[in-house]
């Protein structure tokens, strides 16, 4: 039986790429031998993902699907040595400029990721990107043909989750209603500090008693501490740094959120705004990288240079203006319908079968 294994850099619960790989594996596993291998594995994923060192010997007729999002020389070496055909799924590599000053080693990993793409370019049998924005980046790097398939995208996966009573208690104790929600790792380019500043403006100048919930793992100790310090110095009330949350808790927070806001300066796709739409939460985003393409007309898209004042105005408007709220909710649902018609892993697997396995 042909093997079609997937390789990812890091595997963790709640990580979008890990989730996509698991969804793809669920379909691939019905047709071929398929496992997921990662260089770094969170202990919580140890039963679902195997260490890259354990990738079994392959044949030229087998396939490795590599999800590119960061660079690690060990992974590059492994991929270049393997005899299998290589399928590249590009999820975007964040520009290193966002990290050079405060996290140079992470910035170096991102730079290596882009270098790795050039090293792999001639080895790749099939190239897939999960957004047109990402596809264009690869075309600019000289990849001859790139297919856009947001495979494994399931923004509504948590909507049937039973609410968590402990999370409801946490929300009652820490934030007020209405509250703004942001879901993403705490990283400088995600710009959560703009949301804290906007909340400060709303609480002090607009005199609105509004809360802010930031869900997401702390990936940069410096940025996380700076966010906490900013909250303290600006005396912003009702802010909850919720950290990484399991699905049941996250679903509960989405259900209670008044508005979802993201000030991120770079996203190769941007799944949390789509998850918010799945929970009928009106969504505000910044026009950056692939974000506008992803949300379509389902969200209020602010210009790329939007600062805390414009975010504050937008948040206030969405909270106060019932007609705008319901329009955004309806548009969000339509956008999800459009996306779900084009996503799913079937398209990706068909391409692998037609263009790689049939060779």
């Amino acid at each position, binding site marked *: 039986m042909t093997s079609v294994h997937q390789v990812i850099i890091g595997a963790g619960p709640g990580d979008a790429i890990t989730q996509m790989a698991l969804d793809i594996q669920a379909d691939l596993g019905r047709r071929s031998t398929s496992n997921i291998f990662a260089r770094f594995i969170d202990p919580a994923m140890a039963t679902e993902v195997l260490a890259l060192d354990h990738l079994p010997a392959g044949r030229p007729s087998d396939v490795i699907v590599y999800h590119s999002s960061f660079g690690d020389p060990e992974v590059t070496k492994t991929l270049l040595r393997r005899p299998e055909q290589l399928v590249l799924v590009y999820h975007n590599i964040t520009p290193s400029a966002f990290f050079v000053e405060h996290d140079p080693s992470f910035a170096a990993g991102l730079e290596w990721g882009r270098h790795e793409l050039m090293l792999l370019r001639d080895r790749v049998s099939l190239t897939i990107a999960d957004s047109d924005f990402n596809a264009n980046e690869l075309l600019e790097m000289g990849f001859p043909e790139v297919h856009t398939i947001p495979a494994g995208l399931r923004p509504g996966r948590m909507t049937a989750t039973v609410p968590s009573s402990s999370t409801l208690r946490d929300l009652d104790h820490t934030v007020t209603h209405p509250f703004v929600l942001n879901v993403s790792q705490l990283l400088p380019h995600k710009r959560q500090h703009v949301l804290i500043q906007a909340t400060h403006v709303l609480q002090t100048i607009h005199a609105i008693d509004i809360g802010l919930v930031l869900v997401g793992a702390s990936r940069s100790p410096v940025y996380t501490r700076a966010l906490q310090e900013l909250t303290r110095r600006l005396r912003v009330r009702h802010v909850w740094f919720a950290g990484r949350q399991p699905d049941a808790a996250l679903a509960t927070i989405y259900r209670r959120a008044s508005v979802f806001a993201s000030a991120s300066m770079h996203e190769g796709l941007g799944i949390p705004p789509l998850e918010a739409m799945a929970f009928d939460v009106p969504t505000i985003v910044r026009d950056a990288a692939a974000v506008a393409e992803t949300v379509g007309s389902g969200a209020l898209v602010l210009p790329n240079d939007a600062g805390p004042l414009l975010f504050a105005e937008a948040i206030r408007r969405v909270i106060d203006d019932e007609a705008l709220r319901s*329009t955004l909710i309806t548009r969000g649902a339509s956008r999800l319908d459009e996306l779900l018609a084009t996503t799913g892993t079937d398209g990706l697997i068909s391409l692998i079968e037609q263009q790689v396995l049939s060779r």
Partner: protein
Amino acid sequence: MSEIEVEEIVAGLKRQVVERRLAGDYPVGLELQLESEFQGMMRAIDRHEIETTRLHGLADHVRATAHNVRVTGGTDSRVPGGAAAHSAMGRVVQRHVQPVAESLRELGTSVADALAETRRLFEAQSAADERQLLDAVAGVLDRLAVLDHLVEITQDLEERVARLESEPPST
């Protein structure tokens, strides 16, 4: 809501920001000030993180190195009978080297503990300094707020005096 309507909403929001700025609700340069203060905060925390993180890493390294001190070496040899000779020599030498290794482990643990304590003291001192500084800044801000309030009261009084002076004297 068409694409044009979204643009209209965003344009309306931008106008709102300008109007609030003109009305004095948003102080001039507020966004720049917020951003530059945050970047300053990042730089200050970054400097602090690097120093203590490095100490933490060094302590961990010393602890791990001390823990891994071994008195037995490898006995592999390509010379016939070499492995047996190495093994026998190892057993003889081990008796003398064992106490040295134990001392080394203890020394390593003490050094690691000292580094950890240094880091703890550094962080405690840094937090205390920061608290003191913030208290001082908060005191200054409170006084500035009082001054602002006094200015408002003075302006109000001046306006009232001006009004009274401009009114014709009552008969």
